[in-house]
């Protein structure tokens, strides 16, 4: 599904140069659930941002579904992201001024899906996430767990091939965190590829494979479950 080759990312300011990723070779197969772990500042989020095409690497190659995309321009990235990649953030990143319904609807608006089809898809997704009764509420009226469910609903509404989750349970208590993990697992079972950054060993155990990053390198890879590609 995705594969990187010698991916390197350097942050430069006038005075210092910080290497966030050093020649990372990383692969995720279609339908796989991969957890990325590591201490603060080891490059987890940077890797996730590059995989999500929100950021680009300084060197190295990145194959998405077999296509080399690291040289894509802004428009091509947007086109690829649209409908293919869903994001789940630690801080949910819901838009405060939009209701639950409108937040979830957002990716469909970007895809220019109109009218009834859009309404039906959003309603179905909200029901699936058990949040339908809250659809006219605004983010600040929801609990953290509910907000993250909305964020996940938004991430998967377009049926993306890949979900990138950056510490999705980081801001949640254990009960709500567990619910979110179950949701992710369920999506994975249904075929969605998931890459998740986490600090929690317990949550990382739910993945097929755990990748440990340290100082921009992949130091260990541990297989949690045998993953057999569906096809």
């Amino acid at each position: 599904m995705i594969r990187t080759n010698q991916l390197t990312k350097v942050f430069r300011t006038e005075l210092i140069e910080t290497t966030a990723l050093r020649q990372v070779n990383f692969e995720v197969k279609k339908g796989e659930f991969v957890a990325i772990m590591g201490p603060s500042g080891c490059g987890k989020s940077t890797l996730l941002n590059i995989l999500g095409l929100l950021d680009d690497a300084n060197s190295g190659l990145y194959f998405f579904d077999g296509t080399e995309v690291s040289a894509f321009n802004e428009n091509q990235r947007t086109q690829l992201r649209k409908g293919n990649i869903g994001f789940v953030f630690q801080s949910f990143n819901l838009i405060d001024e939009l209701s639950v319904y409108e937040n979830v609807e957002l990716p469909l608006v970007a895809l220019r899906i109109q009218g009834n089809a859009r309404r039906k898809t959003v309603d179905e997704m909200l029901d699936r996430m058990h949040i339908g009764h809250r659809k006219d509420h605004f983010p600040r009226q929801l609990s953290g767990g509910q907000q993250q469910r909305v964020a996940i609903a938004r991430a998967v509404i377009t049926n993306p091939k890949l979900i990138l989750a950056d510490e999705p349970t980081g801001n949640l208590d254990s009960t709500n965190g567990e619910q979110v993990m179950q949701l992710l697992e369920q999506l994975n079972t249904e075929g969605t590829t998931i890459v998740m950054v986490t600090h929690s060993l317990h949550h990382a155990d739910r993945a097929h494979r755990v990748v440990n990053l340290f100082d921009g390198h992949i130091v260990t890879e541990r297989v949690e479950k045998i993953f057999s590609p569906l096809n």
Partner: protein
Amino acid sequence: MIRQSLLFFVRNLLKDKLFSVINLTNLVTGFATFILISQFIDMELNWDIHNTHYDRIYRVQLFQDQQENIVQHSSSITAAFSRHDLVNLPEIEKIALVHDVGDNNKDGVFLSADKKNQFLIRYGYYADQSVLEIFSFHFLEGGPDKALTVPNSIVLSKDIADRLFRGEKALGRQLYAENKALLTVTGVYSDLPENSEWRPRYLIPMKSFTALTGWKDYEDNYWAYSFHTYVLLKENADPAGVDAKIHDALKDYRKEHYPYLRPLSKLHVNPYFENSMLNGYTLLSFIATLILVLSAINYINLQVANATTRMREIGIKKSVGFSKRQLWSQFVFESLFITVLAALAGMILSHLAIPAFNKLIEKDVITSVFTQPRLLVIIGSITLVTGFLSGLYPAVVIASFNPVVALKQKATSEEKNGITLKKVLVTTQFSISLFLLIVSFIVYRQTWYMAKGDLGFNSGNLLYANIITSKSGSFDPIRQRLLEHPEIQDASFSDYIPFILPGGNELIWEDALPGEKVFVRINLVSYDFVSAFNLKIITGRNFSREYPSDVEKCLVNETAVRIFRWKDPVGKHIQVNDKQVEVIGVIKDYIPFSVHNPIEPFMYRLIKDSASLNGVYAIRYLPGKEKEASAIVKEEFVQAFPDDVFEFKHIGFLIQNENALKVWIVFKKMCVFFAVISILISSVGLFGLILFFARRKMKEIGIRKVLGFSMRSLYFTMSSGFIKLLLLSVIFAWPLAYGIYKYLPGAHKYPIQIWEFLLGSAIVLMLALATISFQIVKAAKTKPVDVLKDE
């Protein structure tokens, strides 16, 4: 997409109400002002449009190809040219000859229904009946076909009819002109709209001209240039063709005189191709545009400043797949939406402001913008352009935020990209405010200079009256009696006085080159004219009763000496009607008519001491004794002229009523109004901008306070940036304002002074500092802990 954007936008507006109010106030005020000025200019440029044949009406004017320093265009021609030459042109459908009743340059003529209640009325005309077919008159009593056909009749405007007959029916009734002529009313027409260039208050048939004026052969006179001629061209007639045909028509009489047609549509703003008020309207349009630009810049500044608070939205939208173009159009759409909203509110506001604005410009002519489709289209297009342009920059800045950075809500990219252009915008904003403020000072001072400045004669304590009489007595005994009163200082009798423009003639002077002639205005004055008006003789002497031969001599003004290139003017001669008239003295230049016009060469000769010349009496009284002096003057003159009607007025009335000055007074009011508006807009804009910076700097202020920084250093840190930009704006605003001073129409300008620039800058600086202080004090007084835990 649109619904989404709109929803989001409205909620965003409501979320930060103060910010939104500031933003909208700016735009709405900007639009309202812009609309009002546009209406004013539109009205000025579409003067006379109510005439059905508006685009086919022309006035025949005259261009006189002669020396500089004299008026080269004349709005009137000779009656003979009109009667004998123009009537034969096939292109002309209708032609009308028009002449002032009395001298409209002077005060007008007294009309009365009963010889008791007298009304001094200006702007009455003798006119051919065809004038009623050329211009659109709406008759309330009688009709245009019979109105100007009967000798010794008069047609009145509604206003005059109501005044003379106290609202009763006027048709068929009789009235007196100057207590002499008895005229029968043959019609009453609706008052012509205020935006009419030719606005007669009453009309008398041209047929009666000879009977009433005693002027017999005027229709054959090719030398009396006091007749106006209006023509209605046939449809499809080519005015340029007519111009070509009449161009040389006068060469048998004066080869340098060229008649031409001037369209009615041009008569108000640009009657003579030059020396017009068109520059004034250009300046006003410029100001209107600047005010709109000012509010648009404010909007852009505030939008960009506010954009950082919307970074998360951008980040999220980008991460869920919104393309740059989609975001870009969202922001442009928002901007269009708010601009259209502001324009609508501006229209309503301007609509509400119409009564006040009409009062300001002293003309009741501006009507609601909603009734003017043409203007609505113009304003609509400008709104869309403004909305699009002001959305463009914020859209580009905002839409190009890096999503990762945007999600972390760090405004780094905005700082880097936006800072220079933002500085440019703030500087522009300061420059515009400063410029408008200084220009309003300049216009204010120039108007003051025109109205009250040193005109070169003492216009303080003078009464004057023009008396039209058939008596022929001498003025001297009256003068002697007047001077017996200590309240009366001096008294003179003359054909004309300053601010009533005399006619003149083309004269040859001693030392003139062969064929050289100059148009010289001629005033006939009594011995005491110079002293009564406090004029100065710079060389030679005044007329004196001790030298009887002074009747054959003359005075000239400085300009004449300069144009005649005389080194030693006393003793030189000017040729008048084949006689050589010797110059005995030179009067220091004063402004004889309008600050607007250059001073022309003048020649003064002694007037025959006879009241029958229908001249002007000027009485100088002891300062502060106007009431007493008026009573004395009235008593003496009523005794001397028991059968005539007249009214003594202060000369200030004449000066204030001079047309160019009247336009300037309106300009002055508008400029002051605009300066206030622009300062308001910039202050509100600056308030918003600083409000935003202060909010963003809350944490910095908190940390600084924890570290023990004083209020003063906080103040300095936060205001120094703005002050630098303000100082920078001086570089742009000062020269531009000075340029406007140079560009102002008018021959005589007040001496500009540096303090006007310094004061303008100081006011803008004070306002900026006051706004900054308000915000900084508020921010600095917040407890540091409240700000710091906000993170």
